């Protein structure tokens, strides 16, 4: 429950965001479920409280602010650049017995500004870092953009690249696909048998033999994927040196400055990542200019891939005690604004702080 100490902490953070030039925004607690389901898929049902409106259908109790804040910005005629702040409850269904909060305050800050992404990234991180100074927290940064650039630059088919990009936020399936495409994992038995079967005849004959066509997925849909499977089976594996670089990138963990040097070192072998690495370098410069020690700042190339988020560039978290959710987190989500913008888009970065965890760390309240 939100105690006076937590409320006071939230107010302090909210005031600091206002002082940094943010305009306060409010959003509804009840959000249409459709938008969130389209973005996150069915997984969001395990995380968000679902309820029903008699007229508007399925609704969810706000699981986060970013989506409604982006929608409000995109629907408005607000000038850009824009900075927003918000403070309010979010609701997270907890499927396990325990002390994890189901409802808590979030205070957030978002920048919509395409003029200098590196500066905007650094502004958000430095602001958060200053507000959380003195607490026993471990910051970690990442950059999904480098990983996405590496995948786009692979010497393989567009179909394989699209499959990998689609699962960039599902590390297990991403890894399984990469292992297969790189020839590190054998073709599964079921797939081998399937290919054998598909090679035996024309799709329409095989379909007719298998049974009547029922359901919305048409004979053309089925035949198209059967053809794609056969085509894909003939594609040569991703070359071993190139695959090795991608595996290396997935596991890269180092202080930010050393990570940059490492990435500079592999860029000649993976030229497609050059623009993303340049952006990383510009961000580190901007961070250093704001007094962040980039020689020691932890960097993990895969940070932000498992948290069911929408980040496609810079990511960061401030971690507190082990086994607990992060005290603060954020990142860049340029693609999300395009998805929600109905034709418009704007580069955007932001993050949230959980004031109940800050207050807990300050010892002001028992959690």
């Amino acid at each position, binding site marked *: 429950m939100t105690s006076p100490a937590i409320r006071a902490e939230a107010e302090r953070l909210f005031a600091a965001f206002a002082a940094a030039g943010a305009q306060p925004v409010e959003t509804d607690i009840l959000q249409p479920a459709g938008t969130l389901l389209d973005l996150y898929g069915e997984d969001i049902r395990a995380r968000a409280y679902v309820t029903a409106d008699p007229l508007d259908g399925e609704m969810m109790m706000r699981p986060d602010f970013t989506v409604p804040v982006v929608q409000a910005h995109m629907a408005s005629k607000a000038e850009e650049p824009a900075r927003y702040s918000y403070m309010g409850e979010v609701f997270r269904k907890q499927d396990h017995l325990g002390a994890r909060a189901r409802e808590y305050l979030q205070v957030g800050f978002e920048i919509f500004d395409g003029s200098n992404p590196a500066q905007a990234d650094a502004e958000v991180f430095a602001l958060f870092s200053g507000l959380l100074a003195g607490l026993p927290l471990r910051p970690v940064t990442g950059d999904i953009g480098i990983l996405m650039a590496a995948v786009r630059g692979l010497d393989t088919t567009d179909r394989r690249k699209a499959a990998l990009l689609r699962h960039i936020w599902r590390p297990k399936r991403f890894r*399984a696909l990469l292992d297969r495409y790189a020839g590190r994992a054998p073709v599964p038995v079921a797939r081998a048998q399937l290919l054998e079967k598909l090679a035996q005849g024309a799709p329409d004959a095989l379909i007719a033999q298998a049974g009547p066509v029922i359901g919305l997925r048409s004979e053309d849909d089925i035949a198209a994927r059967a053809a794609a499977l056969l085509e894909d089976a003939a594609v040569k594996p991703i070359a071993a040196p190139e695959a090795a670089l991608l595996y290396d990138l997935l596991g890269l963990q180092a202080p930010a400055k050393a990570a940059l040097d490492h990435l500079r070192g592999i860029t000649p072998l993976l030229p497609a990542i050059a623009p993303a690495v340049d952006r990383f370098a510009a961000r580190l410069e901007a961070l250093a200019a704001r007094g962040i020690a980039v020689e020691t700042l932890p960097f993990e190339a895969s940070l932000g891939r498992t948290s069911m988020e929408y980040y496609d560039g810079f990511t960061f978290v401030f971690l507190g005690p082990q086994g607990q959710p992060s005290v603060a987190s954020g990142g860049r989500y340029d693609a999300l604004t395009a998805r929600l913008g109905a034709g418009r888009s704007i580069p955007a970065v932001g993050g949230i702080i959980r004031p109940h965890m800050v207050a807990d760390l300050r010892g002001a309240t028992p959690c």
Partner: protein
Amino acid sequence: MLKIGVPSKGRLMEKTFDWFEARGVTMRKTGNEREYSGEVQGVSGVELVLLSAGEIPRELAAGRIHLGVTGSDLVRDKLADWEGQVAELAPLGFGHADLIIAVPACWIDVDSIDDLDAAAAAFRAAHGFRLRIATKYHRLVREYLTEQGVADYQLVDSQGATEGTVKNLTAEAIADITSTGETLRANHLKVLADGPIHQSQATLYASRGADWVAAAGPMAALAAKLGLAVPAL
């Protein structure tokens, strides 16, 4: 007094009665055949509560019954953090059924969960909405698909005749329990090759939330008859 919940009708009830009978505990319905009341003989202080199998997980979680017999699929689907709410005492060896995912047999390009994921992506691109999987086992199916990293699907609720949803165009695939697969075949569906999401059978559970103080004596006597260790709850 120790309360034990048992399915109130059909084969599940009969087989449960048989299982206890074989261990020297007699359960029987009392009164009129349609009346839901019963008694337990062979061990004192045990009260029989006849319930719908689907409600037994909820009654166990609430602690209104101490023990209960129901399908493991129902416990795992209806109870969040089921191991925190109930303890599994003994699988009873009947009521076997597999929770599976099935797709139209004519989908010659789909044999595995991997194929289903790829087909879902293509389906969403072509049709503008996420591929629909009809089921009543929302938690088990969603957790399985999340764990497997499947995207671009949606679960649609189907409380019965689930095998007919594909033909009726209300779903593209289904997730349901099956024992022989006959209904699936009759409805032109085939099971994905990855193996079942869950292999269910009738199971004896103990509630972690019930008041065990007054039930400790009957529980010790019953456990001795059944050859089970008294669980730490």
